[in-house]
């Protein structure tokens, strides 16, 4: 089947200037200050490849995020984000998604959280029956039909 061209992906690319990138790391450090259990926020995505993926998926938020990063650079980060959360929740959430999305997409963070990511897991023969045995449905069957019969139209 010859399909017509797809226009879904046509939009302006989403990249950050060096200043915006530096501010993004400051935002990330505010949301995810270093601790002892999980990888430090500035240690993940060292080559920037995850950020690139994240930005492409957040293209609908490009202007909001870029504008917020430009503004945030001129303020104390904690104060700025607290005010933003009160005054423009949508923009605050966009920034949160950017920095949490970058961090929580990193494989080393997945490993620390015990997350394997999405892997194909074909359904095995008899698997559906195994989850229902032995007799998990028996009480339901014993009770019988529960629908309300209706007068036919």
């Amino acid at each position, binding site marked *: 089947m010859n399909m017509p*061209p797809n*226009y879904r992906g046509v939009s302006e690319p989403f990249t950050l200037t060096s200043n915006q990138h530096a501010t993004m790391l400051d935002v990330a450090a505010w949301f995810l200050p270093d601790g002892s259990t999980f990888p430090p926020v500035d240690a993940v995505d060292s080559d920037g490849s995850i950020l690139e993926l994240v930005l492409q998926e*957040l293209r609908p938020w490009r202007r909001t995020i870029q504008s917020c990063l430009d503004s945030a650079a001129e303020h104390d980060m904690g104060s700025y984000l607290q005010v933003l959360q009160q005054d423009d929740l949508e923009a605050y959430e966009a920034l949160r998604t950017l920095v949490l*999305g970058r961090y929580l997409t990193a494989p080393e963070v997945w490993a620390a959280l015990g997350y394997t990511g999405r892997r194909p897991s074909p359904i095995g023969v008899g698997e559906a029956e195994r989850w229902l045995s032995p007799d998990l449905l028996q009480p339901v069957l014993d009770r019988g039909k529960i*629908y309300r019969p209706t007068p036919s139209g």
Partner: protein
Amino acid sequence: MTIRRGTYDATAFDASPDDVADVVIIGAGPSGAVYAKYLASWGFHVVCLEQGDWVGTAEYTGNRQEYEVSMYGTWHKNGNIRKLPSDYPVDTSEADVIPVMYNAVGGGTIHYGGHFPRMLPSDFRVRTLDGVADDWPLTYEDLAPYYVRTEAEFAVSAMPGDPAYPDGPAAPNPALPINAYGRKLAEGFNALGYSWWPAPNAITQSTIGDLVPCVRYGTCEAGCPNGSKASVDITHWPAALKAGTTLVTGAWVSEVTTNAKGLATGVVFSDRNGVQRRLRTDLVVMAANGIGTPRLLLNSTSAAHPNGLANSSDLVGRNLMLHPTAMAVGVFDEDMTSWRGPAGQNIHSYEFYETDVSRGFVRGAKWLSMPTSGPLVTSDLLAPADRDTRGEELLDHIKRVMGHSVLLVILTEDLPHEDNRVTLDPVATDRHGVPAAKVTYRRDQNNIDMVAWNLRKAEEALHASGARDVILHDVMPDQPGHLLGTARMGTDPETSVTDPFGRAHDVSNLWIADGSLYVTSGGVNPTNTIAALALRGVTELVRRAADQEVAS
């Protein structure tokens, strides 16, 4: 006739002004696809106009590292945020629930979870049984044969014998595994004496047509990257095209035209470059969903139809129902790898579906369980106070919930109200200057009480299942936003827009095929019913075709 067969972009549409299509369908989602496939099999030359594009399986993010982030951006449920070239603005500033739609070949089936229940017998007799709203002009028994055929075409996986329904034939596939988290919940339901059953899904476990077996990515709502979820771009459109249908993408319909007698004569549409085109037709089928269909009808005014097409009842756009949905998240000690799909519904319960007036409200809700997700989405499942934490504390909360939880979703019936409606936005337009849709939708006290009561019962059920914590989420604005009721069917032209099959009372060569036809919403996911109603409608259309009045 020079209208080329096959699928191509509207910029390449080169039909002669003298050409007359047998049928023009507006919208290539589930109802449009059912109509196209069936009509083409009977030899009609169908031209379907779809403002979106084809979406290739490779475009879905579900098997990629960036999947979760995509759900907040390019695959966001809300078109006002996603802002794809195919999206049009919808003013939701006066709506408690946001309508969810996807403009593409496949329509809402691109974005849906594949949940594929039928409505229940009582859903068609709400006035008779419960004294509220209206009865449908058909019964469960009338629709049952079309459900059977629809479930075959959508390669449904289901277990026969569900005690919530009358008996019927087996689905094409057995039920999907309920996984550890479904079993955990089922044990709690059994302890409380609740009825439940492995839930039906339009997700295949065998190769059927172009569908291939599910591998449980659990990402159905952002499209299936494996091609296992039955979206109609896979299940219906290839056959419709093979039978000679014309499917034009990037075609933004703005108006259905009529003649002095009030019959539909054709449509006006723009391509993506803004070039306006006209196409004549003998018959128009509206399949643009419960928002898009009333929007176009209201925008199609003429001397014969001054209030919009098919709107002598003033009911076009009214009685919008969106299925307000809440959720209880049960957090367990055990690691159940609960992000494993499909997603897809897992088990369902109709224990509290029917009216019990002692609860303080009428009608009820379907409960269904679903898998959770990875770390980013899990951060949004947390209780508000936990979600607002930062650093190690936030990550500890995510780790505690992710993989250890089950989502118990409460999908409620909302009763029709004429003030809940779709109108034309007086200011905003789409990219071609056509008025945008404005949605006004407020939940009534019956629904507010219904949700509160069900959340309390869901919390009890999760504790009975062994949950250590339960996190309650009241009605979620973007879940699921099913689009129902805005051109209701009925027998009386004063109280309905179409006849019991979908033909407009006012315009005999105009049919409505989508969820707009709903009389009451029921409390179940609608795609199975929308497709079955479409199959019933198009069967009747063909039966009446010899006597069909046309303009040309």
